[in-house]
């Protein structure tokens, strides 16, 4: 089984430039600079139907095509490496194991939109990744892959590493751009989209690490190869992960469209002894629960959506039968309430409210009216009602928990205690 993104990565080793080149690295870049126009690169990526791996699944080539190529002045490319979705650790694997793959992807992408300056916006806690990226960037400069007149092509690109200060909000691309500008990490209204007015008000593309890392492979091996990797209409492989009380939690690069069951049973080794599967968040903390009824759902953008959730980052968080779903969701809402940027009312005030209700339920102080409030919040904090997608994402685990585990919530109310005996902080 092919694993183009991760096959060169060895545990505990960060591939340096020599190792990367030996594995065929920077050949795609040479090909692009020597043989392809920027428009051709964009067309290729568009044709591949590479969908953004950050969670939204938007067509990467389409995103690039919105950049006004005739606009004078600087353009920017930004790698969103602010991986902070609870339960998600897929980009870290790529960042620490093979930073040059990302850098090559970024150079090609920057070339496609003719950006002259690029940034890696990295989660502050990824200290090791920061060290490796910094090293890899300087190696790339030394080798002439970055800087002025790259490989004699006349194309210039600067690349900088920017480490964030630990705000989940920065995963949202416009908040990331504000943060990168030195402003508060609050999202921006769209339109205008970053492709038109992004970093410093200039055309900017923000792509996820996994997305950008794929670019060299698509360039080298072509569209048909890329699509052939997948079991479904969404091309390529995907890094999937599983966390929770499974035997072998981890992350694996697998063909797009493996089923939840395969992931859980074959790769994660099934549930730990004595624990039963109750449900999972298929794509990180901000996705709806799926339950055993959905275990045969192929993990791609379309099928997971049809099952009532989102593929998100593709890293599954498993809920077992010994863990209180109320406490589980409380933990998540605590995170989301704390990470709300405070810009729009429903998110700023609504999330702490849900968190407090969930806490009260766990303490045996919840009421039936509280459950109604939770229901109300899952409806009112929906997409479009809030300024960005943070609160709607936060409502996804809550609304599906209320749907699938309603009796647990009601038991908390009736018994005036947590039946699992769990204690949340």
């Amino acid at each position, binding site marked *: 089984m092919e694993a183009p993104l991760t096959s060169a990565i060895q545990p505990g080793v960060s591939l340096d430039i020599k190792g990367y080149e030996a594995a065929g690295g920077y050949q795609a870049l040479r090909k692009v600079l020597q043989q392809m126009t920027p428009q051709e690169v964009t067309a290729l990526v568009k044709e591949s139907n590479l969908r953004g791996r950050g969670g939204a699944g938007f067509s990467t080539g389409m995103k690039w095509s919105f950049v006004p190529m005739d606009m004078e002045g600087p353009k920017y490319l930004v790698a969103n490496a602010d991986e902070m979705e609870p339960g998600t650790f897929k980009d870290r694997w790529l960042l620490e194991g093979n930073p040059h793959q990302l850098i090559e992807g970024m150079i090609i992408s920057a070339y496609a939109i003719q950006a002259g300056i690029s940034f890696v916006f990295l989660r502050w806690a990824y200290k090791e990744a920061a060290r490796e990226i910094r090293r890899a960037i300087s190696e790339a400069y030394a080798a002439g892959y970055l800087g002025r007149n790259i490989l004699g092509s006349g194309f210039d690109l600067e690349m900088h590493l920017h480490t964030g200060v630990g705000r989940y909000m920065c995963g949202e691309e416009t908040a990331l751009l504000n943060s990168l500008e030195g402003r508060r990490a609050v999202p921006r209204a769209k339109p205008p989209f970053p492709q038109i007015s992004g970093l410093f*008000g200039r055309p900017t593309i923000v792509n996820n690490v996994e997305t950008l890392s794929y670019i060299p492979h698509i360039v080298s091996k072509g569209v048909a190869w890329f699509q052939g990797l997948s079991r479904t209409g969404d091309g390529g492989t995907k890094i999937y992960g599983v966390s929770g009380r499974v035997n072998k939690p981890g992350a694996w690069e697998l063909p797009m469209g493996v089923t939840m069951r395969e992931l859980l049973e074959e790769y994660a080794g099934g549930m730990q002894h004595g624990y039963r599967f109750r449900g999972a968040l298929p794509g990180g903390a901000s996705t709806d629960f799926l339950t055993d009824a959905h275990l045969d759902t192929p993990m791609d953008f379309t099928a997971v959506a049809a099952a009532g959730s989102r593929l998100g980052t593709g890293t599954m968080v498993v809920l077992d039968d010994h863990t209180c779903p109320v406490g589980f969701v409380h933990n998540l809402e605590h995170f989301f309430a704390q990470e*709300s940027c405070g810009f*729009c009312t429903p998110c700023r005030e609504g999330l702490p*409210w849900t968190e407090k209700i969930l806490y009260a339920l766990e303490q045996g102080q919840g009421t039936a009216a509280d459950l109604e409030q939770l229901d109300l919040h899952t409806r009112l904090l929906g997409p479009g009602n809030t300024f960005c997608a943070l609160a709607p994402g936060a409502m996804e685990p809550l609304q599906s928990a209320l749907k699938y585990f309603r009796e647990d919530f009601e038991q908390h109310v009736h018994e005036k205690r947590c039946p699992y005996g769990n204690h949340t902080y």
Partner: protein
Amino acid sequence: MATIHIDGKSYEVKEGRNLLETCLSLGLDLPYFCWHPALGSVGACRQCAVKSFKDGQDTKGKLIMSCMEPVKDQLRISISDKEAAAFREQVIGWLMTNHPHDCAVCDEGGSCHLQDMTVMTGHSYRNYHFTKRTYKNQYLGPFLNHEMNRCIQCYRCVRFYKDFAGGKDMDVFAAHNHVYFGRHQDGVLESEFSGNLAEVCPTGVFTDKTLQHHYTRKWDMTYAPSVCQGCGLGCNIIAGERYGSLRQITTRYNGAVNGYFLCDRGRYGYEFVNSPRRIKEVAIRGLTDTAIDTNTALQYLQDKCKPGRTIGIGSPRASLESNFVLQQLVGPDHFYLGVSDTEHDLVSLALKILRQGPVRTPSMQEAAAADAVLILGEDLLNTAPMLALSVRQAVRRQPAQEAMHTAHVLSWQDAAVREAMQDKHGPCFILHVQPTKLDEIATGAYHTAPDNIARIGFAVCRLLKAPVPEVKDLTEQEQQLAQQIADALMAAERPLVIAGYGSGCEGVLRAAANIGRALHDSGKPAMLALTTPECNSMGLEMLGGHRLESAIDAVVNGEADTVIVLENDLYRRLDKPVADRFLKHCRELVLLDHLYNATAEMATVLLPGGTFAESDGTLVNNEGRAQRFFQVFTPPGAIQESWRWLLMLAAATGNERLKHMAYLDDITRAIAQRLPAFAGIERLTPPADFRIAGQKIPREPHRYSGRTAMLADVNVSEPKPPEDEDTALSFTMEGYRGEPPSSMIPFFWWPGWNSVQSINKFQVETGGPLHDGDPGKRLIEPGSNGQHGYFMDAPEHFVPLAGHLLLIPLYHIFGSDELSVHTPAVAERMPAPYIMLCPEDAQRYQVAENHQLQIAIDGHPYTLTVKLNPAMQKGIAGVPAGMPGIGISETPVIAKI
């Protein structure tokens, strides 16, 4: 135009505005917080949600935020939709999770936008049963209270303070539901416009601290539409009174003048009205033992005011009516301008330029629409603060236009426009004697002597191909600057040149006029704004009179016995030795004024003249806009309008020119009839006999409380309210409850809209003119009084004189104005007197920072504390203008060291 459908009804509306402002302009009620007509939309509060439908078939629809939605043809929305209404109610529910239950003790209560919106959405029951978050408040200086627990995080404060007004020391801190709006630490808010936070804040986070010292609810005040006395710009204000003291000044919206805002001098400088230094009774020197009633005073004066032997000295801070009556009382031949000769020369030159030149002088609204600005010799934030706010908006024009074009956004999409334009500014050049706070937005700022500023101005004019002589001996830097300025002005569509009294230099005014004319001659719709020092400087100049110096001659030469001084402290017009000599020679010195001042010390007769809050009258601002201000309350004691005193005196002395005049309208009509320059001022507002449905317009809100009780300690019978025979406003709560004519709106209130946000209901469209036009009448239009050509005489290059310093006035928003410093809060912000030198001069005269420097003017010694400023030019020293305790009134002047 577009047709949109709201709840099944169709409306013809402007395309491209946002849906919220469109709904409000249509008179529909839709709650909002973060949007402000002057600040645009950011979509933070989510309060203005409505349901939008794709087409007539779509019954499901989706919620949209109306402030973020551009109006397009066939937009189909519902405000009353149940889901939308429930969402809006819940937004208040969310805000209330942390908002305290302190309306009863909150200064905002009764004029609170949050209260109004809460009622509007129907939220009445709190479902949230957890604890509220709390904050520590900050000390923000003498003007504003800070009560962060009330904050609903609408972000308007920082958007006004930082984005709109350019403030640096306020921001938003922290995140999630602990967002904090304030300074990085306790301290005085530095912005000259901080007081607007009290009006911009939709609830009680920022409230007026001066009001709190004598707090009164909005509904309990007696209000009148008025005009600010703080400088020459004539911003429109609303003044509120209770129990005979003035309590608060708020913005009176005027789309053409000050819009939604005021500067802090204008907002807080009102407390001189309540000052213990007020002259409340008649006083006659030598008659201290007996109480002097009005009749005694008039009898006394009847003998003293002999025709031909009496002269009058007018005032730039007195109404047109008071000045006119004095002029007619003593006769135009015996009427003198109560300003220093330097100031008179500057203002009369400004008037000549505006009248006889071809260039139009802009309103502040028009100034804000300029796309290139040249400021010659003015420190606007200190001489005409609100014009500086217009300049701040003007420098955004060019980059904002460009940003709107490249990012495909509309002007009200505030965050997107600001993001796309970043910190770019349109062309703005500031030439001043020292750095000004506005320099930060300047493309180029240059600091040199006023004469040199004028020379650069003349050079710019020549570069604009005007037939003026070449200016020789400019430095290379100055030549480049002139070229840069000329290029920028020529490239602009609506260039604006600003100069005025601040430089104290006529050459600067001439240069500004020349540049304006040259731009005009090359086909540009150029604008020329010239500042004037006081609220009626322009009106007084238009009225005309002799120079103050000749008044001194008249008295010293024995040509006059009695001098009537109108609302003036001559010690601010003349250096102390000169004033002393003059006033000692007056046989009778009659002063009509508000406060005991240095002139009052010398007066033989004191007549208590009403302040703006106790008088009706007309003022003419720097734009030549005549504006009416109305009496707020009937003052205690013998205080009455100066013009009424003077009319009584005219009657007592049998004056023919003022026969049959008793009321304000009589005077205003006479001015308009006798002086063509003032034609039309009688129609500034409806006359005294104006009625709507047979009723006057009440100065008091209909909820005014305590009328039967408030004077019960004096007399249990409720006194008859005073009658206003001069205007169509009444001093009561009874009267016409609908919308008054725009020139006489005493307060903004509308059913369901108790806060200042009710202004929306009085406008043609939000942010637009008031319903029957913005008040005021422009009296000066280009070429209205002959034609002047280019000024040909550039001043000589400034050369320092050995052993001497040229003293230049430096203005201070808090301190340079005579009356506003009587507000304790304003006095607190006043700098200590100083003399500002460059380090080289300090070395030459062997002084250092904080040393005392002795100087002499006309042989009279003055001692001042040294302040160093490397940007000052050699041979020049700055002294604070108009500040108490300095005694140098006539600047610029050469001082010997």
